[in-house]
C-alpha cells in the first residue's frame, strides 16, 4: 500500500467518523428536544436543499478542477458575486422588471460569457505574472463586494434590484404524481438538472478521459506532464477559466432561483463560494463527493425554514448560521485532505 493510498484510506475513515459523529449528535438532539422529524425532512425540504445546493455544487466543481491542476482558486466567492450581478443586470437590460424565461436563460448565458473574460484576466495574473494565489483570490472577493453593489447602484439607484423573475420549474405530467420521487425528480428547477449533469460530466472527464489525467498530472507531477509533451500552463489556464465560469454560473443560478439581486452586507452570495471550497475538500476532490457535500450544506442552510414550519422556537438568525458551523466541523474532522502536490506553485518549463 503506497503512502497515498494509506493517507486516502485514513482520510476516508476520519471522514466516516466525522459523519457518524454528526449523525449521532443530530439523533441525540432529535430525541432530547423531541423534534418532529417527519415535519422537518419533507419533500419540500429536499427540494429546497437541492435548490440551495446547486450554486454551491457548481462552484465546487470549478474550484476542484483548478486545484486538481495545481491552482488554488480562492476567488470562487468573488466570481459568484460577479456572476450574480452580471446575470441580474443582463436580465434587467433585456426585459426590464418583467423579463421572460428566454431573457432569463440569455442572462445566465451572458453571465457565463462575462465570467470567461474575467477569469481569463485572472488566469493571466495567476499564471503569467505568478500572482500570490491566496491574496489575488481574496482581492477578487473584495472587488466583487465593491463593484457588484456599485453596479447595482448605477442601474437601480440602490444596492438591491427590484423583483425581476425566477426560473420556471419544469413539470412532467403523470410522473409528478409518483409519491416522494415525483415531486423531487419530475417537478424541479432546470438548473438542478444542469448541475447534476455538470457533476457527472466533471467526474467522467476527470477520471475517465486523457484530458482528466492531464489535469491531475498538472497538479500532482507537472514535470512529468511537461516531459510527456503537454503544456502544463495551458492545462492550468483551461481549469482556472473553467473554475471561474462554474462559479459565475453558480452565482447566476443563485440569482435565477432568487429572482432579484441583493447587494447589502456580504451580498446575496453570502459565503457560498467559501462553502464551495469546503465542499470539494470534504468530497476529497471527487466531483460526486463535492456535490454530496454541497447538498449537505444546502440542507443545513434550509433547516431554518423547516424549524419555522415545525414551530420550533429558534432564532432564524442563529439557525442561519448552521452551514457556517457545519463547515468548521467538517474542516476540523476532515481537514487533512491530500492536496495535489504542486498546488500554489507556479510552473516554469525548463526549455
Amino acid at each position, binding site marked *: 500500500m503506497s503512502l497515498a493510498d494509506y493517507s486516502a484510506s485514513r482520510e476516508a475513515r476520519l471522514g466516516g467518523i466525522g459523519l457518524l459523529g454528526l449523525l449521532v449528535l443530530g439523533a441525540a438532539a432529535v430525541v432530547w428536544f423531541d423534534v418532529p422529524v417527519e415535519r422537518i425532512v419533507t419533500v419540500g425540504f429536499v427540494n429546497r436543499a437541492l435548490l440551495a445546493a446547486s450554486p454551491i455544487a457548481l462552484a465546487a466543481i470549478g474550484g476542484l478542477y483548478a486545484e486538481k491542476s495545481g491552482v488554488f482558486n480562492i476567488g470562487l466567492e468573488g466570481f459568484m458575486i460577479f456572476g450574480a450581478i452580471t446575470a441580474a443586470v443582463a436580465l434587467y437590460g433585456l426585459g426590464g422588471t418583467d423579463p421572460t424565461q428566454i431573457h432569463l436563460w440569455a442572462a445566465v448565458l451572458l453571465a457565463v460569457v462575462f465570467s470567461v473574460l474575467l477569469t481569463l484576466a485572472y488566469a493571466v495574473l495567476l499564471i503569467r505574472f505568478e500572482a500570490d494565489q491566496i491574496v489575488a483570490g481574496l482581492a477578487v472577493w473584495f472587488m466583487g463586494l465593491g*463593484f457588484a453593489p456599485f453596479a447595482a447602484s448605477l442601474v437601480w439607484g440602490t444596492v438591491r434590484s427590484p423583483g425581476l423573475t425566477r426560473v420556471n420549474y419544469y413539470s412532467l405530467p403523470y410522473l409528478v404524481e409518483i409519491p416522494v420521487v415525483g415531486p423531487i425528480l419530475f417537478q424541479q428547477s432546470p438548473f438542478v438538472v444542469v448541475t447534476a449533469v455538470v457533476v457527472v460530466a466533471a467526474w467522467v472527464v476527470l477520471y475517465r478521459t486523457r484530458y482528466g489525467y492531464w489535469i491531475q498530472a498538472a497538479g500532482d507531477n507537472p514535470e512529468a506532464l511537461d516531459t510527456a509533451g503537454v503544456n502544463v500552463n495551458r492545462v492550468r489556464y483551461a481549469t482556472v477559466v473553467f473554475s471561474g465560469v462554474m462559479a459565475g454560473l453558480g452565482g447566476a443560478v443563485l440569482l435565477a432561483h432568487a429572482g432579484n439581486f441583493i447587494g447589502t452586507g456580504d451580498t446575496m452570495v453570502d459565503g457560498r463560494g467559501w462553502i464551495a471550497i469546503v465542499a470539494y475538500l470534504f468530497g476529497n476532490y471527487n466531483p460526486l463527493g463535492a456535490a454530496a457535500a454541497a447538498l449537505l450544506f444546502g440542507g443545513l442552510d434550509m433547516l431554518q425554514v423547516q424549524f419555522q414550519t415545525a414551530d420550533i422556537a429558534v432564532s432564524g438568525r442563529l439557525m442561519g448560521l448552521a452551514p457556517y458551523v457545519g463547515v468548521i466541523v467538517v474542516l476540523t474532522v476532515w481537514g487533512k485532505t491530500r492536496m495535489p502536490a504542486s498546488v500554489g506553485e507556479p510552473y516554469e518549463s525548463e526549455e
Partner: protein
Amino acid sequence: MSDAPDSGRVRAALDRAADRMLDASVYERIGIAVGSTGLALAIGLVIVALAGYDPIRFATQLVVGSFGSERAFARTLQFTTLFVLAGVAVAIAFRAGVFNIGVQGQLIFGGIACVLSIVWLAPYLPEGRIGGVSLIVVGLLASAVAGGLYAALPGALKAYYGANEIITTIMLNFIAIGVVGWAVDGPLRPDDARSVRTEYLPDNVGFPQLLFDYPSFSLVGLGLALVVVAVISVLMTRTRFGYDMVTSGYQLRAATYSGVDAERMIVATMTLSGMVAGLVGAVFAIMVQGYFIDPTGLGTYGFDAIAVSLLAANNPIGVVPAALLFGALDSASSHVQIHSEVPVQLIDGIVGLVVLFVAAPELFRMIAERTGLGGGER
C-alpha cells in the same frame, strides 16, 4: 529528515530566510505599494468616467472629503486609528505565514466584550475620572481576551486538526456577525432602546478631546494605536518569540530544526493577532460609538485591514502610512456618499483592485522593465 539537525545547516537556512525577506528591497516594496494604489485609483477614475460622471470632480471630492477641512481630517484620523490596529493584527498573522482573515469577527467579539465588561462593572466603581480610566483599562483587557480567544480557536483547529484557517476564520466572521447581531437585538438590547444597540457606556468612559473638536476621534486613541505598533514591532524584530514567529512563517522546517514547536507557534500567533483585533473593537466602542450596534452596520475594518497590511508588506511600521491612506479613502467615502452622485461602493471596489495588484508584483516589474522606469527600484 530524521537525522539530527546539524547546526551549520540550520544556521544557513535561517540566513537564507533572512536574505529572502530583505531581498525585495524596501524601495521596491514602496514602489509596488505606490504603483498598486495609483493604478487602482486610475482604474477607479476611468470607471467613474465610463459611468458618465466627472472623474476630476470625483478625484477632488476624494481629497476634500479626507483632508479638506478640520472635520474631514479628524474623520480621516478616526478611521486611520482603527486601520492601524486592525492592520497590525493582520500583519502579525501574515508575517508568521498564518492567514487570519477573521479580524472582523475578532474585533466584533472584542467590541462587545469591552462594552459588556464596562457596563457590568460600572456600578461597582466610583464615578469620575479614576473610575472612568479603570473601566477603560478593563474594557481594553476584556476586548483583547475575547479577540484572542476567538482567534485561538481557528489557530488550534489549524495547528492540531489541519483545518484551513482562511476558511475557518471567514466562517467565524459570519458566525460572529450572526451571534452578536442576534444578542444585540435580543438579550442585550435595553427595553427603552429604539434602535438595535446595547446599553450606552457610562459618561465617564471616553477618551478626552485633544486638539480636535470632533466627537468620534481622540488623539489618545491614535496614540494607543501607535503604542501597539511600537510594541508589536519591537516584539517581532527584537525578541526571540518574534524571531521564531517570523521564521516559522518563512522557513517552517528551519524553525522546527531550531526547536520551535510549530503547532504552538500557530496558536500563539493567532492569539496575539486576535488580541490586537479585539482592541479595534474596544477603540471603536469607546472612541467612536459609545455603545455597540448590530455588527452588519459596523464597517468592514477587519477586511480592509488585509489590504492595509498587504500594502505595508506586512510590516507593522509600514501599516501606519497604509492605514492613513485607507483612513483617507474611508473618510472620503463618507463625504462622497453625501456630496456626490457616484455610488460610494466604488471605493470598496478600488480597495479590491489595490489588493489584486499588490498580489502581483511581477506585473510592476514587467511594467518597469518595458517602460524603462523605476531603475531605482532594482
